[in-house]
């Protein structure tokens, strides 16, 4: 062996059976230690706290208390907003990606769309909420344009930017670009030979889509929509700035709990957060499974 002595400080020079195993694993310690301190330990603390009452006794009462009307309502509203924006953002994002790739539009539009999507999927939070207030608020640019030029007063017809529908509209701004970013490579992955082979066998364009392209794209489509669901389910800043408490979302209840004990029970707050993570975990697990399936065809 020519390995220099100083390598022993940070790890074994060559994998040797037995004793060196642990030395090899030492190289992973900093990473897991950081994850433990700033993510796993706080999460474990929330889980442990959710099973304790105010005096520190073991209880499952906090989870039973999640059935209070306003908490159930918060979960339902969060899920409804996330579902609506995931499906609408997913469908529109897919159509948009299809339009620039296979819809016969000039090629430079595709490059432009991909760049815009990268920016828009990252433009969120307070500035996004403000931009929509300037657009669709009471005296927003589009509101006034529709009212004064086209004679349609959307606010008088029941539209309210600071309500759930307004939140849906605003979330779409970062939802559909994310769909475009993920769907574009998938649509690119559809091979020309598949289309030609099916045409040789006498398939129409509709049959090609129904029997070949869509089944191949379905795992990616569904998987990405689940990702969009999680993307909006965990969002807090945009809703905080836009609705000022008028829409009851789980993330907003948690942030209210941090500002002051609004639930009058710390353990209930922990249970609320753990419930949220549980829903996210289900979503991300489904996403991972679907992503593996889509990798079978799209490389």
């Amino acid at each position: 062996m020519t390995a220099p002595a100083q390598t022993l400080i940070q790890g074994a020079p060559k994998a040797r059976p037995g004793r060196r195993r642990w030395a090899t694993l030492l190289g992973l310690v900093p990473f897991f230690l950081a994850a433990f301190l700033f993510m796993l330990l706080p999460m474990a603390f929330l889980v442990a706290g959710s099973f304790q009452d105010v005096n520190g006794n073991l209880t499952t009462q906090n989870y039973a208390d999640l059935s209070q009307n306003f908490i159930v309502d918060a979960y339902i509203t969060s899920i409804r907003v996330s579902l609506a924006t995931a499906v609408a953002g997913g469908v529109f994002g897919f159509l948009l990606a299809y339009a620039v790739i296979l819809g016969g539009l000039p090629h430079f539009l595709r490059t432009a769309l991909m760049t815009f999507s990268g920016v828009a999927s990252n433009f969120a939070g307070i500035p996004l909420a403000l931009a929509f207030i300037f657009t669709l608020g009471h005296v927003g640019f589009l509101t006034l344009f529709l009212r004064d030029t086209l004679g349609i007063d959307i606010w008088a017809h029941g539209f309210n930017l600071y309500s759930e529908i307004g939140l849906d509209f605003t979330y779409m701004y970062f939802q559909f670009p994310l769909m475009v970013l993920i769907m574009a490579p998938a649509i690119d992955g559809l091979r020309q030979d598949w289309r030609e082979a099916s045409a040789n066998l006498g398939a129409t364009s509709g049959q090609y889509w129904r029997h070949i392209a869509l089944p191949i794209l379905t795992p990616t489509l569904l998987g990405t929509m689940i990702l969009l669901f999680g993307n909006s389910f965990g969002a807090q800043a945009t809703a905080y700035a836009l609705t000022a408490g008028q829409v009851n979302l789980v993330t907003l209840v948690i942030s209210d709990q941090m500002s002051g004990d609004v639930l009058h029970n710390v353990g209930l707050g922990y249970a609320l957060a753990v419930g949220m993570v549980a829903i996210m975990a289900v979503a991300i697990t489904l996403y991972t499974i679907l992503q593996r399936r889509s990798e079978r065809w799209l490389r």
Partner: protein
Amino acid sequence: MMRLRLTPAQVFWWIVFILGVLYFFLPLLATFLFSMRSQPLFSAYTDTLTRGDFWSSLGYSFVIGVITIVISVTLVMPTAFWVRLRVPRARPFVEFVTLLPFVIPPVVIVFGLLSIYANKPISLTTVPYGSDLLLVGAYTMLSLPYMYRSIDAGLRAIDINTLTEAAQSMGAGWTRILVQIILPNLRVSILSGAFLTLAIVVGEFTIAAYLARPAFGPFIALIGRNEAYTPAAVSIVSFGLTWLAMGLIAFLGRGSRARVRVAGAH
């Protein structure tokens, strides 16, 4: 007169595209026009750019972002390298941890951090730089999915076994291998991960606000509540910064086939 001949399908795709463009640009246009209403012209921008709290909050967020990037690269690069070289069996565990920030929303991370580190016996929020440490820690976690994927994709493209053996046979230690051999080969991956992290961190609101840090996100929220035209100008500036970060990523990634997954903290 030249006539464009479009099939009905093409007309449909053009409509979809134009709707997308309108959705994208109308809010920006509205925000820009609103910022121009303040008199004299451009005063919303000059007011913004001359105020101290704008620069101090932006500077604070930028510094926190840079520290986060340095820590994130220092943690992720050796780990991803080591997993590929020596402990491929640890890959599922490392990948699982890097996926966790997608599962635990920022509001829950900061809730957890405050619950454990703002009370006795470890009351970090009351010591100097304690809250800043928590902020950097939380942001490092947020950066993990992007940084890990970016660096791991970069490692896949180079032959780390040969590089490592060649360096070792010439007497290089691990630090030297990582800093002088692997790091330069991963320049593009690391920089894309870094700019994405910066784009996420600089405008982040939730974690910074509940840790009571003087960051850019909470600053925009504060003036958004209290002022008229400057918030519009700041929104446009913030959009420009996001654009700059994404533009740099696209510029770095040109010609490479590695895709960078892009998504922010909302």
